[in-house]
Structures are given as C-alpha cells and as structure tokens.
C-alpha cells in the first residue's frame, strides 16, 4: 500500500519502514519553534519537575514575537524568563529583539525549515512549514517541555485529505482567497485531526510565500498538518535561504496509490476575492456579496500575510493615495522591514497615512498595536476572526488578502481590489 508525504516523514522519524493512518508512533523531532507566550510556561514546568535537559541546543529556534517589544510589565517578565533560559542553555538559534520576528515568517526566511523533517512549535500555526514538504504541527506547553527535554513526541498518524486546486488564479485573487474558499467549503472542523495535502495546477504559479499562506491556515479547518509537494519553486527558495551547513535534505513524495480519506476539488479560476466574515474563518463570502461594508481599521501583517510579497501587493494599491481609515502595516520580520525601506514601500505607506510598526504579532491576537474598541470593524490579513480576537468582544474582524485589505483601507469600506490593479 502506498504512503502519503505525511506518512513517509513520520515513518522516517520513527525509524520504521511504513506508517499507516491511525497508528501511534514516537517520532524524533528535527526542529522545535519556541516563542514568548507558550515557552516560558514550558521552561517553568521543566524546572518544577527537576528536568534540566535540553535534547539538542542546535535544534531549537527561539524568537519572542507575540508581545515583542514587551507591551507591558507582565510580557516583559515573560521575555525575561525566555531570555534567561535561552542564554543559560546556550540555545544556538536565539533571535533576540532586533532580529526577532513573527515565528512562522522568520524560521523559513532564516533557513530553519527543510523538506522531510518533523517540526513542532508551541503555536497552532506551526502547520505553516508544511509548505516545504515537511511534517509540521502545533503543540501546547507540556508537549513543548517534553520535546525540549527528550527530542521525541508521540503522534497518531493522521488520515490524509487531498485538496486539489485546479485552474489558475485570476487577477486580484490570491492564495489567501483560495484558503478562505477551502475552509468555507469544508468547514472549520472539516479536516479535524487530518493531514491536508494540497496539489493542483494553481500551486505551480504560487511563490513559497503564497503557499505558506495556505498551509498556515490548515489549523482553521481543524487540520493537524498541511503539505505541499516539493518542486522547483521550493528548491529555488531553499537555495537562497538555507545556509551551507544545513543545505542537504530529503524529499518525500506521496505514492500514486497512497490512501486519501477524501478528495476536495476547488476551481481556482472561478474564484473571486474572498472575505471571511465574523466570527469564523469558514464564514467566507465573495467580495461582490459584502463590498461596501464600512470599516474602522485595516491591518496588514501576521504570519499569514506579513511577508514582503504581501507588502508589495498592498503598496501597489496604496501608492499615491490616502487611506481613509486607520491602517496598520506590520512587516513580519526585520529582514522584511528592511526590504520595505529599501524598496520604497515604507515611504509609500507613510505618504498614504499608514502606521508602519516593528515586527510583532501585535494586534493579530489582540496583544497591542491596533486593538479594536467595542463596535469597531477591522479588515485584516490575519488568520482568525473569533470573538474578541483583536480586542473588544464586541468588535468584528473580516479576514482578507493584502490586496483586499489595502483597497478597503483606501475606501474605508470592504472594497473589490481588482479595480485598483492594472
């Protein structure tokens, strides 16, 4: 019987020849992602239990991101604990403030993500890295503590679901619109416990940045992990981003006779720009059905859409115009921040009346840098629009692509981005 990418990677990590969906395996971990919210408690747990071990200081990547720079005294305490631990243990890849960035944008950019590996992180959107044909999933603090100490975790191999993205995207339609359409179609628990394997022609034209937007949101359909097969686009990205010391990797592909629990087909050519309305990422509607709704804020950033490509798309629309509502631009990493300066994007945003911040998760999770008051509405390039996600439980979040968020910033209401694109 054939195996999927997910099963092959888990088999490799468990030292077995085969793994089938539903089997429990104990897998070796290749990379652990640690940030400022879930890692400090994991460190405290290890201390409380008298466990002093770190399984491998070169396989742990630490970056404060959620509340960095510290937004208040309590978050400063979290950072202090994280910092003290990372120094004491001699964690090799510790991104201190100034080099720290939103985890899921930072790790691929800095060359920590390789195909064929098992990657876990104390964050639900750790599934992002599956875009590189890796097995990657989010865990809580206790699992994180166990992984840090032992370098191993048990997993139930998930059944796989194949999502075929047919056709090519029309102008003004992006990978964000595709993933909102997928979640709307299958529901926010449509992939519960499952691996979502994305294939199809539409992926060919997508950059790694665009693909990461798709795998980033598999958790919003309940998925355990998401995968995209390795191809020349993957290789070209890795050639630029992997350091020489870790430039080798193993590529796994799904067999032709691999088992899929279901197959979902999406006609990408027929898609319009999408907006996920409050309060679920699966509440997607085409822009033609919701254009005109007044907004109070536009937020462009996060691990979903805070990469340089997103900033370029937003800047193209905003250039030479004035924004009509509060518009907050948050580059996900210092490298992106610098690129924005070098390419003149920061200036475009400044001239238009936007706020440009330092890299942080910020308001994506209602931390700081753009919190909403009761009754306010925000069009946002982030991944969750739950009740209270960006501030007041009485505020509303509308998820969309950077182009839609930028066009909506210009008009102050949900706007079809296509009229601003040449």
């Amino acid at each position: 019987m054939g195996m999927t990418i997910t099963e092959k990677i888990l088999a490799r990590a468990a030292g077995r020849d085969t793994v089938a969906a539903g089997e429990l395996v104990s897998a070796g971990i290749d990379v652990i992602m640690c940030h400022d919210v879930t890692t400090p408690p994991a460190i405290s747990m290890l201390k409380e239990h008298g466990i002093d071990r770190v399984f491998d200081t070169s396989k742990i990547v630490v970056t404060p991101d959620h509340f960095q720079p510290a937004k208040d005294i309590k978050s400063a305490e979290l950072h202090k604990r994280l910092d003290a631990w990372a120094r004491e243990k001699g964690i090799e890849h510790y991104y201190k403030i100034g080099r720290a960035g939103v985890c899921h944008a930072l790790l691929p950019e800095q060359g920590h993500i390789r195909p064929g590996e098992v990657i876990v992180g104390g964050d639900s959107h750790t599934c992002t890295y599956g875009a590189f044909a890796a097995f990657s999933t989010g865990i809580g603090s206790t699992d994180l503590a166990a992984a840090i100490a032992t370098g191993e975790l048990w997993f139930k191999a998930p059944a796989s679901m194949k999502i075929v993205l047919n056709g090519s995207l029309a102008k003004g339609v992006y990978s964000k619109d595709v993933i909102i359409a997928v979640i709307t179609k299958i529901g926010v628990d449509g992939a519960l416990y499952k691996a979502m394997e994305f294939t199809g022609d539409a992926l060919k034209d997508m950059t790694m940045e665009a693909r990461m937007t798709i795998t980033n949101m598999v958790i919003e359909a309940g998925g355990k992990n998401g995968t995209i097969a390795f191809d020349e686009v993957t290789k070209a990205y890795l050639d630029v981003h992997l350091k020489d010391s870790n430039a080798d990797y193993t590529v796994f592909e799904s067999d032709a006779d691999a088992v899929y629990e279901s197959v979902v087909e999406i006609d990408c050519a027929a898609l319009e720009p999408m907006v996920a309305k409050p309060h679920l990422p699966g509440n997607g509607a085409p822009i033609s059905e919701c254009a005109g709704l007044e907004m109070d804020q536009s937020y462009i950033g996060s691990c979903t859409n805070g990469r340089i490509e997103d900033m370029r798309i937003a800047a193209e629309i905003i250039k030479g115009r004035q924004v009509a509502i509060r518009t907050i631009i948050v580059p996900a990493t210092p490298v992106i921040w610098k690129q924005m300066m070098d390419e003149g994007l920061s200036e475009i945003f400044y001239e238009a009346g936007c706020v440009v911040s330092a890299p942080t998760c910020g308001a994506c999770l209602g931390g700081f840098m753009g919190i909403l008051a009761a009754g306010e509405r925000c069009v946002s390039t982030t991944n969750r629009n739950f009740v209270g996600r960006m501030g007041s439980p009485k505020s509303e979040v509308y998820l969309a692509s950077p182009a839609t968020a930028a066009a909506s910033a210009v008009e102050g209401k949900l706007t079809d981005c296509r009229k601003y694109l040449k």
Partner: protein
Amino acid sequence: MAKAHVYKRDYINTDEIIPARYLNTDDVAELATHCMEDLDTGFVGKCSAGDVIVGGVDFGCGSSREHAVWALQGAKVGAVIAPTFARIFYRNCINCGFYVIELENAAEKINDGDEIEIDYGKGVINNKTQGKAIEFRPLPDFAIEIIKDGGLLEHIKKK
C-alpha cells in the same frame, strides 16, 4: 456532586476560554479569574469545584495555548464533555491531567444545571437529575494513565 454548565454552541475556541489579552501571564490563579470570559462573563461566579462544561462540536479550536486548560483547571472545572474536540486542545488536556469526554449530542443529553457523576474508567455518565445513565467511549488506557499520574511530565518522570 458535579453540576453541568451547558453551552449549546459549536466551535467554542480557546480565545473564548481564555482571551489573548490575558496571555501576558501564565499564573494559573489569575488565568482562572478570566475563564470562559468572552463566552460567559458569569461563568467563574457560578462554577463550583468539580463542575463540568458541556459544549458543541470542535470544542477548544483555535490557538494552541495550554493557558485554556490551566484556566479551566484553575477554575476547578472537573471535565469538559463535547461531541468532538480540536486536536491540540484535546492533547493539551490529557497532558495536563484533565479529563475530556467525547459524547455525541452531548448538549442534548445533558441539560444546564443537571447533577451528574462520571465514571471515567467505565465510560458512564450518571445523570442524576434525569435519572439516566449515559455511556461514552472511555479514553484509551495510556491517556487515563497520564491523567492519573497528574500529566505528561509526571508520567515521563515516573517511567
């Protein structure tokens, strides 16, 4: 005896169980004071030690924050009963030594305020108010073992 607090809502997410604005701390006592705040501001006031929460499908979806489980434990909630759970939340519960019960149509079988008693090993909820015994599939043995040990780290240490 445990009382049931029933929320007839699907997709109760971890942002509702513990809003992100409180994630600047991992102090369990403090988290507990905000437990379920964005869903029901009165929850902490009416929850007594050992009470259970009953919800709809995909309970605990969203963020991987274990703070959600700690808030429930801090508020002395005894268990959560729902038809299905989001996987990270489910795993976090077991890792923290906290019981989760999968029960189809849970919110139809148990009413708000019902007095219940749970036998986790046998997989039976005794609904005293309605005079009914409700069966559920017990957690796998290894998960019950982890819970009985007081969580994954205690369990690892014991081994």
